[in-house]
């Protein structure tokens, strides 16, 4: 039984094992939006650290895919968790109260993709100016004509 199987036991998540020599990902799983909070709590107590919270705009399918990457300091397994949300009103539950480091990652994903991380106490923009409301990493983003002009 691998470390990941042992950790995720009883969570009803089907894990795939891609070729890590080719992709650098040791295990991946797609979860539903409701599963991410119990899952990340399990991962936190198993000692996995958060590498990144981000997203991919799959404009052809009209969805935004959240990509969470976890790793472990001793077991060295990169675990990729993905989940899908509707592109018009993207929403994910926050994991910022479980992983304190996730707050900044969620602020960044929030401003770049317009994702609402529900329950997050800090939804301010992180890297863009606080007044900005456009989402540059969306595939249909067009550079505003007066991008430099911020009130």
């Amino acid at each position, binding site marked *: 039984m691998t470390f990941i199987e042992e950790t995720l036991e009883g969570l009803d998540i089907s894990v795939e094992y891609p070729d890590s020599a080719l992709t650098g990902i040791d295990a991946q799983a797609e979860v539903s939006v409701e599963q991410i909070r119990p899952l990340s709590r399990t991962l936190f107590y198993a000692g996995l650290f958060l590498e990144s919270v981000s997203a991919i705009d799959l404009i052809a399918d009209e969805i935004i895919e959240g990509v969470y990457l976890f790793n472990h300091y001793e077991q060295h397994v*990169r675990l990729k968790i993905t989940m899908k949300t509707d592109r018009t009103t993207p929403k994910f539950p926050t994991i910022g109260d479980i992983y304190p480091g996730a707050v900044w990652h969620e602020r960044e994903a929030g401003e770049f993709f317009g994702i609402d991380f529900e329950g997050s106490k800090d939804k301010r923009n992180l*890297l863009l100016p606080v007044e900005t409301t456009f989402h540059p990493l969306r595939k249909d983003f067009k550079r505003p004509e007066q991008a430099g002009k911020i009130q």
Partner: protein
Amino acid sequence: MFDSQENSTYQLEPVEDNQFVLNLGPQHPGTHGVLRVILHMDGEYILTADPVLGYGHRMQEKIAENMPYTQILPYMARMDYLAALSFNQAWVCVVEKMCGYEVPRRAEYIRVLTTELNRISSHYLWFGAFLLDLGAFTPFLHAFADREMILDLLEEVTGSRLTYCYFRFGGVSSDVDDSFLQGVQDFVEHMRSHLKTYHELVTGNVIFQMRTKDVGVILPFDTWGYGLSGPVLRGSGEKYDVRISEPYSIYPELDFEIPVERDGDCLARYMVRMREVEESLNIIQQTLDKMPDGPVRSKVPKIIKPPAGEACMAVETPRGELMIHVVSDGTKVPYRVRYRVPSFGNLSVFSRLAKGQLLADALAVLGSLDLVIPEVDR
């Protein structure tokens, strides 16, 4: 496109009587770059610290979505200007992984040799700047004189002094000659003897010990909760180094230690970095001894089109784990590039560490995290 929201601004008013708001930065010698920290103070003590980022933000991830794979390479050095070669290496390795390009042995050795030189130069700049934060000026001059030797060596092979763009897909841009290798050999010998001066000057100093010991202690839960990596993590007792955990290039063939300290304070982080310099010297000596002959660049197509799919590649930069996640749709520009930069996680723990500290100690903590702000901002 832009509108002001009520909850989107930063709290700048004093919360209670006897308290005040102190704005640190964006231009401040202690922040090492354009970082602004809003501090709520009670006298000399910090109640909350709220870092404000984005002053050097360039939207690197969007730039990468609009460019062929080759043209993204020079942007790497602009993220972390102190460890440009590590960032070079991450990008060429992730593309080589996706496309399956072979890298000649000599090129791998040159890559490791130059990256480790770059690591030492980065640690020396940190050493000088950190001690400057603590009020010591002399170590800075020693560190910069030695760092200058590395910059001269690297300038000889790469052509630039800081923002190197030396690695290519399938190798390096130009071969190194014997005078460079001799220069590196001389540098290693010089450094092994000169490193003692550093320790005599700084490590045993009583004022330095008192300024750094038990200051900014990182608790075990915070290491993985905030996703720390690099010397900041290894100063807290975790033996995690990408060069060992996910070996890449020729690191499995080399014999080196991963320095770990248990205390988790500023002094532990200092000791980890100083011991890492010694290990880097060991690695450089081994690459010099084993340097094979042969070509330094394999043949790769002019237009790079990785097959549809994704790849993650992590490398150990002087500041910690850099991970690049590339999603390709089979065209000549990436569909999505995600940079997981080490300083991002290392800076996010700062608010936790600064709470309840004296202002002067918080600046020591900020210095000990070894931040490069353009890397956080991207």
